[in-house]
């Protein structure tokens, strides 16, 4: 489990930062410390091992240091309580020896060891304080990518709305969707400076995608030169100057960051920078200048520059363009229908779309028949991305005829699923499926079989519970709070307190001759939740590995939380192999309790075949609708890739069928909610899940904790 670590590690970093400002507060007493430690370390304490001794060690520290130790103890204990225990036991000594920042690093290193080698070596690392001190004196204040990746990824995503991932690699470059960069930077003595360099590398490579360094085909350009590598190096440098100049127009802070990190430009390049300041400078200008500069001596690359891999970048860009064009086409088709429906009088033909856009600001105005329309958010997002790849929105993208290159996948062929009687005999149920091309259902198209899920490792759930002990305790508390959400019931016959309003009213009533009410009390009551939730878990082959592992953990945490909450819940898995064999696996029915058998079946959740989502939604919505409850929720956990073997379910057909099934569920009074683990940020998700509410989790590692949190929010 990598992520809770990362995120909570820096949580403490900022706590620690803040504590500088509050050094004047009085230190906590040993008693107070002990209580806090009891809370944090509970799973590592026993009758023979209390928090008292540790509290005694921490009590003499300043309040700032105490806060520091407590916040980091929490982080360490999130991983496993024992680490928190070892850390707090050593902390006073570590602070004396290493200082606060040094102590932080010492713990972080131990947590890394824990991630990679496990608990025992991690404890050993913590205990070897002196050895660590010796080693760290020799090394500088490096920054690891893992510690800053999320912040930088969020930052880049904010800059232009596109997702860019950061990955550690030996060579620094970008394919326009992933930036490869060093796993660790220790070039400068201070952490802050090293972080700035990371940021500069990220920004520079972000800018290559943002301002279109790969928007023309560079291969032939380079091949024209006697030494293409030299031409590439020069182009890289010219582009670096251009990108910085471009950023200077809208992102003064970014341009300043880069300028501060590079040497003064040689005199020959200063006018180049000036030329690039124009709003419309593009990679074509760099290509032109390349002629001029190619034979001049090549300056040192700037510290934040990496290499260019035009071919690989072109490939990724090409795939993205194709994908986005298709997605836009689908979205615009919907938009056109909506616009057409909204037209005042019956106008002939489809609405004609037109757009003005600016690469500089990524703003655009979309017009339908000459009138401005506000596009849905998904369309806006796609258009902003498309502008980055073309510098504008290509006209043909807005034509109703659709992309020429768009090869519609053949619709599923063949007869229906076999006679009803035949199917029933085999224990299957028939379901209709939505065919978006026909705008109609294919009758009895899918055969669905429901069976009990196979059990897995009986020790699995216990292991997850142990690993997440701290988090589970926290979750349970939070969920219990939800359940115990005390509602004041007013105007009761009896209760804990007088209802003042009611009393006054009764008094007033009596005086004005109305018979006063006797309901004069307020009662504290647990609110009646009356929720039934169906969890539908993706067991398709595409979840294999990491995602599946996270799904299972998510289920364990959900069960733990829901047990505390008391909502009725069921868990079913789905998978399948063509429309004739759609499988639903019972993991926990509404009537099952969370017992040994259920736990075994959760452990047995594993990737199987394909993902025919529509039929699974229809079937499970049906089961859910039989439960008596005020609020019914269908909660899907999947990787958002509807797909099936060989019969055209993949792609648009499956997306539209899934969407339709969600619409049906919603119509029947169910609240569909979809949690998607999608590490590729596919663009059709908003459309497919449009009828439902949904969240995207782009790091599977977040799934276990996020899912429970999402559920909590959904029902509070």
């Amino acid at each position, binding site marked *: 489990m990598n992520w809770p670590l*990362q*995120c909570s590690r*820096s*949580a403490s*970093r*900022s706590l620690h930062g803040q504590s500088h400002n509050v050094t004047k507060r009085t230190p906590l007493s040993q008693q107070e410390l002990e209580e806090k430690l009891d809370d944090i370390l509970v799973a590592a304490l026993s009758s023979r091992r209390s928090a008292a001794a540790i509290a005694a060690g921490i009590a003499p520290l300043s309040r700032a240091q105490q806060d520091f130790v407590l916040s980091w103890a929490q982080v360490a204990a999130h991983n496993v309580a024992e680490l928190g225990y070892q850390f707090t036991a050593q902390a006073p000594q570590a602070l004396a020896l290493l200082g606060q920042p040094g102590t932080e690093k010492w713990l972080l290193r131990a947590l890394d060891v824990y991630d990679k080698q496990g608990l025992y070596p991690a404890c050993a690392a913590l205990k070897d304080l002196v050895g660590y001190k010796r080693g760290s004196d020799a090394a500088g204040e490096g920054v690891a990518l893992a510690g800053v990746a*999320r*912040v*930088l990824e*969020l*930052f880049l*995503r*904010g*800059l*232009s*709305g596109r*997702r860019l991932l950061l990955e550690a690699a030996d060579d620094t470059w970008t394919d326009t969707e992933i930036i490869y960069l060093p796993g660790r930077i220790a070039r400068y003595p201070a952490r802050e400076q090293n972080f700035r360099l990371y*940021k500069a590398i990220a920004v520079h490579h972000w800018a290559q995608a943002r301002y279109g360094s790969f928007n023309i085909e560079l291969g032939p350009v380079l091949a024209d030169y006697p030494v293409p590598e030299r031409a590439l190096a020069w182009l890289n440098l010219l582009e670096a100057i251009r990108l910085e100049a471009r950023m200077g127009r*809208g*992102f*003064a*802070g*970014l341009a300043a*960051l880069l300028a501060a990190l590079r040497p003064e430009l040689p005199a020959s390049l200063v006018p180049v920078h000036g030329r690039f300041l124009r709003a419309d400078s593009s990679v074509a200008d760099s290509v032109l200048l390349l002629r001029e500069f190619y034979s001049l001596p090549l300056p040192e690359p700037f510290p934040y520059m990496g290499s260019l891999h035009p071919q690989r970048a072109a490939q990724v860009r090409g795939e993205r363009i194709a994908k986005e064009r298709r997605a836009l086409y689908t979205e615009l088709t919907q938009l056109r229908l909506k616009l057409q429906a909204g037209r005042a009088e019956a106008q002939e033909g489809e609405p004609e779309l037109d757009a003005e856009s600016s690469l500089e*600001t990524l*703003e655009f105005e979309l017009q339908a028949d000459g009138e401005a329309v*506000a596009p849905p958010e998904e369309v806006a997002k796609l258009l902003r991305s498309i502008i980055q790849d073309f510098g504008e929105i290509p006209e043909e993208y807005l034509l109703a005829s659709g992309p020429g290159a768009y090869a519609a996948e053949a619709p599923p062929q063949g007869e229906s699923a076999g006679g009803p009687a035949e199917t029933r005999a085999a224990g299957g149920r028939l379901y209709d499926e939505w065919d978006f091309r026909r705008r109609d259902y294919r009758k009895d198209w899918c055969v669905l079989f429901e069976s009990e899920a196979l059990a897995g490792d009986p020790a699995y759930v216990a292991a997850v519970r142990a690993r997440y002990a701290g988090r589970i305790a926290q979750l349970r508390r939070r969920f219990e709070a939800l359940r115990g959400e005390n*509602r*004041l019931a*007013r105007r009761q016959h009896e209760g804990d307190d007088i209802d003042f*309003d009611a009393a*006054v*009213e009764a*008094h*007033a*009533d009596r*005086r*004005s001759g*109305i018979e006063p009410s006797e309901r004069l009390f307020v009662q504290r009551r647990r609110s009646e939740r009356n929720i039934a939730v169906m969890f539908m878990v993706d067991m398709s082959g595409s979840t294999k590995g990491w995602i599946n592992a996270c799904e299972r953990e998510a289920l364990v945490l959900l069960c733990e939380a829901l047990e505390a909450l008391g909502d009725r819940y069921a868990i079913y898995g789905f998978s399948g192999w063509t429309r004739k064999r759609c499988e639903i696996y019972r993991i926990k029915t509404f009537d099952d309790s969370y017992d040994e058998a259920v736990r075994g079946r959760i452990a047995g959740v594993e990737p199987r075949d394909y993902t025919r989502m529509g039929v699974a939604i229809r079937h499970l919505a049906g089961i859910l609708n039989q439960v008596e409850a005020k*609020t019914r*929720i269908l909660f899907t956990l999947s990787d958002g890739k509807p797909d099936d073997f060989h019969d055209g379910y993949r792609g648009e057909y499956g997306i539209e069928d899934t969407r339709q099934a969600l619409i049906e569920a919603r119509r029947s009074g169910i*609240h569909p*909610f979809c949690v998607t683990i999608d590490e590729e940020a596919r663009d059709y998700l908003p459309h497919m899940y449009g009828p439902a*509410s949904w*969240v*995207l989790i*782009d790091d599977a590692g977040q799934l276990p904790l996020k899912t429970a949190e*999402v559920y909590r*929010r*959904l*029902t*509070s």
Partner: protein
Amino acid sequence: MRTEMNDLHDARRLNADLDRIETEPYYEPVGGEVALFEAAWASRVPVLLKGPTGCGKTRFVEHMAWRLARPLVTVSCHDDLTASDLVGRYLIVDDQTVWVDGPLARAVRSGSICYLDEIVEARKDTTVVIHPLADSRRILPMEKRGELLRAPPEFMLILSYNPGYQSVLKELKHSTRQRFVAIEFDYPRPDLEARIVLTETGIDAATAGRLVKFAAMTRNLKGSGLDEGASTRLLVHAAQLMQRGVAARPACTAAVSLALSDDPEMLAAIDELASAVF
């Protein structure tokens, strides 16, 4: 609701003229909403305002009340709001029982515009009292008093609703929703938003433009860890701080980043975004 309650307890201050808006509240129209609202008012159809927090719904209502020269009665709904909080109740004043209209009854009597803010927060059994007012009957039954208030033509009911809630327990009932014409709000276009920030705070145009840009970047993070991006309101706050001498970056942190998230990495990322434009 708090102010309304205080009003309630002072039975003599029930003059709806107190709610009359004297000077024009600044409102920057962003689409056809003004005309739509006027048409709804003229047709006596109630209106539902949908949109994310801080995008100008309340300001719009104030502006429209001024425009139509109607008093405005605002109720912020919460889950303890009872029907009699809205309709009214008997109180004892100087040893006499006095009926005191609730804000809704007051608004009906005085032909005001009644704005029920965040209607989903109210309990469902409270919400139903507005039903007869919100359809063609336009009446408010006051059971306690045995009175049936008939709304004059100027009376108008407005609800606001933020669809950003993900909670299934806080969805508006169809029977409520379908009584209203909906006007959808979103953050204004960049140029308009900059003008709003500028007009509200007097900050220079360049800074207003940067703030708007910053807001757009935070909105890019919606769904990737943020539930909502920065609203116009937050930009106004940041500009106000800057007008009082706070430097741009700390102003953004205080007014925007910290208002959007508690996640330290997200906070750091938002601060970095501010540093890209300031």
